């Protein structure tokens, strides 16, 4: 694909999407492996998942506006951005699924 300049918010929020998708995985692993983090997240907004979601959305919006002001649209193009987004969501999807995969160990003996 030929290199075409991006609009600043498309570039800024696109990069934020990449970073935040990966951050989502980091938060998941830390809270699942660390009881004190899990307890703190439960205490913060009443449920760890609510706190997790709030962090992800706030970081996405904050980074989006920060990156949009950093003129990154001059360094990126739409083709690269799409590749980064696809890889970020695939990597996060694979790590999340892999993290919980041991929980499927009894699925082979399911009865119906």
């Amino acid at each position, binding site marked *: *694909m*030929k*290199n*075409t300049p*991006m*609009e*600043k*918010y*498309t570039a800024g*929020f*696109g990069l934020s*999407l990449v970073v*935040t*998708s990966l951050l*989502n*995985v980091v938060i*998941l692993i830390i809270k699942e492996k660390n009881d004190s983090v899990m307890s703190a997240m439960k205490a913060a907004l*009443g*449920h760890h*998942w*609510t706190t*997790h*979601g709030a962090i*992800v*959305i706030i970081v*996405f919006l904050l980074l*989006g506006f920060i990156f949009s002001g950093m003129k990154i649209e001059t360094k990126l*193009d*739409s*083709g690269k*951005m*799409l590749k980064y*987004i*696809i890889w970020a*969501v695939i990597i*996060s*999807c694979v790590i*999340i*699924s892999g993290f*919980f*995969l041991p*929980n*499927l160990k*009894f*699925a082979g003996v*399911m*009865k*119906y």
Partner: protein
Amino acid sequence: MLVQGVMMSHVALGVLGIMFAVALFVDVLNVNEGNIERIKKLSLAVAVLIVLAYVIGGYWYVVYYGHDRDIIKAGQWPWAHNFFMEVKEHIFFAMLLLSIYLPIAVYGNVPLTEKPKRSLVLGVSALIVLFGFLMEGAGGIISKGVTMGLMGR
């Protein structure tokens, strides 16, 4: 009844979001001056529908799901929660971010005449559809996990 209504609206909003993303994908493949406004409206609709599905589904998950989770974990398909719900509730955030990003990508790239810009919007909407199917499938397995739990009692 309220609980069922909340759950059904979560599912319905998610399905509508997927359908609108498919419509947007097809419209972008056939982009012209006549459908640009519809593409913009569809991108906003996808974002609003998926955010609403998140808020309503999140409310149901936090307030009501604990009872269902206990039934699933005590039943024959405990992995319906231990794997599928755990994966669903965390991968959903990627779909949520993609949906919020979609209108930003559309409004920043109109009139979508250049192929790389069109590809970005097509790629994001395709990911939303794929993740949407993943969410719907996982949701079906989780609800079946409740049925299996109740059947075993």
